[in-house]
């Protein structure tokens, strides 16, 4: 058993609240990613689980035992560090066996376990080397071997791949994932890289300012973000957002109106009481389509005109930054040279699409994928402006606003 639970964990440094009453249940064998911008409290959370930092308030339990005030050595955890933290005065064998030697394991048992761990992380034959002689990836594998050799209840990983180069990072990402599945050990993984979190985790906990914004499987965080912060943090490039106001039958933004009126028997989720509310409308780049293209969504919004500003081909797709030109507002040809962020819309288009910069295009949103957030609180009001078809069970996932 290696479940971890935080109950109202609170950490204050002088007058800064690093982690604010965090309650989190991590199940046995689960791979949970703590993700958020730097300084959001994710590392502090991990340190509280590890015992390197003691919470100011609240309780932490591992495998059912309250370990709130226990030192790290009594917690049955192992940790992999961002700066790898191998002991430079010991060779690889001594590094891996450090914890076992401290716990007075028998020599033969230590040898057996170190051999096994070295085999798992593909470090055979390097046990007598010094950490200095190893490459960054090998060093981090020693760090992982040091963690798995004790067969702990919980793995804690504090941005273990942050110091590796991009190619190695992707490779190690897969290896850690495979290893975690093989060993089936509860893992808490801290990263600031949302892509890493998306690809590796069973569940992601997105943290901002010491508070969990959403804790859900990666795809749910992506398709049904609980609030505006999650929506913009998860996904790269980021979601487009516009300010708008809810009217009787539509959401009015500066450049377009998104009809709320039910179509073909579908229902929308914004009730009458939302009328006049200031909202923020979010739509991901891949859910914006060119009217001229073939793959128009099932329920498109009203189209509107835009001028292509910058094209960024990345290979499998091309990101087009476009400036919306609305009928209601005059074309802002005299806009500042750097462009105004709110005036921009990022569209993901097929690389074969022949559009050029400064070209005038017509774009539509996929209304099923439009997110609406309350302007004041940032909480999500609805995901998709079309409700589920009453007969369509597969689409029932958008039935209710994700509560928190």
């Amino acid at each position, binding site marked *: 058993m290696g479940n971890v639970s935080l109950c109202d964990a609170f950490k204050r440094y002088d007058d800064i609240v690093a982690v604010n009453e965090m309650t989190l249940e991590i199940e046995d064998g689960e791979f949970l990613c703590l993700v958020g911008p730097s300084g959001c409290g994710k590392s502090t959370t991990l340190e509280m689980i590890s015992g390197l930092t003691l919470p100011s308030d609240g309780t932490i339990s591992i495998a059912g035992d309250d370990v709130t005030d226990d030192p*790290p050595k009594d917690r049955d955890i192992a940790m992999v*560090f961002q700066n790898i933290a191998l002991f*430079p005065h010991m060779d690889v064998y001594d590094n891996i066996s*450090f914890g076992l030697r*401290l716990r007075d394991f028998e020599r033969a048992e230590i040898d057996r376990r170190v051999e096994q761990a070295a085999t798992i992380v593909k470090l055979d034959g390097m046990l007598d080397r010094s950490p200095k002689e190893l490459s960054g990836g090998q060093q981090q594998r020693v760090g992982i071997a040091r963690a798995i050799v004790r067969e702990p209840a919980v793995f804690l990983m504090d941005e273990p791949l942050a110091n590796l180069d991009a190619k190695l990072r992707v490779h190690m990402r897969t290896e850690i994932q495979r290893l975690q599945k093989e060993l089936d050990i509860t893992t808490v993984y801290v990263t600031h890289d949302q892509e890493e979190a998306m690809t590796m985790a069973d569940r992601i906990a997105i943290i901002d300012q010491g508070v969990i914004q959403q804790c859900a499987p990666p795809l749910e965080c992506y398709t049904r973000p609980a609030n505006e912060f999650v929506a913009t943090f998860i996904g790269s490039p980021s979601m487009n957002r516009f300010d708008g106001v809810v009217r009787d039958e539509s959401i009015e933004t500066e450049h377009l109106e998104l009809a709320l009126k039910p179509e073909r028997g579908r229902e929308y989720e914004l009730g009458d009481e939302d009328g006049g509310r200031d909202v923020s409308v979010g739509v991901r780049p891949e859910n914006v389509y060119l009217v001229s293209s073939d793959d128009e969504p099932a329920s498109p919004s009203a189209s509107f005109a835009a001028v292509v500003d910058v094209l960024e081909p990345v290979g499998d797709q091309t990101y087009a930054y476009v400036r919306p030109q609305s009928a209601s507002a005059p074309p802002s040809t005299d806009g500042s040279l750097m462009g105004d962020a709110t005036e921009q819309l990022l569209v993901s288009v097929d690389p074969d699409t022949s559009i050029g910069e400064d070209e005038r295009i017509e774009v539509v949103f996929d209304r099923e994928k439009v997110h609406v957030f309350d302007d004041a609180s940032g909480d999500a009001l609805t995901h998709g402006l079309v409700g589920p078809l009453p007969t369509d069970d597969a689409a029932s996932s958008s039935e209710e606003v994700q509560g928190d």
Partner: protein
Amino acid sequence: MSNPVTTDAAEKRGIVRQVVDFLVSEPADTYRLLFYVGLVGFISITLFPFYWLFILAVTPRGQLRNMGLVPEGFNPSVFLTVLQEYPLHHYIFNSIVIAGITVVICLVIGSLAGYAFGRVEFRGKGPLMLLLLLISYFPGITYLIPLFEMLSGTLTIGVFVTPDLYNTPWSMAFPFTMLSLPLTIFILTTFYSQIPDGLEDAARVEGTTRLGALFRVIIPLSAPGVATAAIIVFIGVYREFFFSFMMTDGQPDNWAVLVYGILNFQQQHTELWNLMAAASLIGILPVALLVILAQKHIVRGLTSGGLKE
């Protein structure tokens, strides 16, 4: 040469000119030349006392009055005399033991304090460190009378009488520790604070206590600093005279140290200068050996000041 000059003056001027021309045109050689001039001067000044001691030692006693820069006679047997007829080796042994005790106590206490100052955040850390350094700048002699009373068993605090440590190594190890600790703590603080936090965290997660992490990870990685501190303390104690002179009666069996032993050659009516010189030279050897052996560490310790991860 627009002005007519005498041949003699021209020649002189020619030499000066040649020298100046050489110095100006060959700056690299000039610097090297100046370097050697400085080096030779420095070495002469440093090593001359040793040469003088050596001459003094090998000059037969009767000819000491006429002693000059070159030895009047050659009598190397003094080096054996000081060991065979006088218990010089016993004094040296006493010195090494007392210095060793002081080094061990200083390193243990200094490590704990250095860990606290270098790696733990606590209120009043800055002022406390300052106070420590401030006290270390006081001349040790100012504590002499209370220390002597305390260590010779004449100080009474309520019903307690301090133990009589006169003529024991502790009566010297105690004040030396007190005087050396601030510097030790300062050196070790600097080194321990440079060990990355991650290494200590890793050790603690792997199963050590904070103290265990200090001894298993931080101290081994601070070896240059620990060696530097150890050697500075050792040399300081080994050559200390004042407290050593006050705390024993000068008998080798009563833990009199090397400098006291050398002083003992100065007897009531005679001064055995040649024996004193020979004893001094022999007494230097242990420290010289220590420094040569640990030189690598000291240089690393004083210059680089630690290691990077």
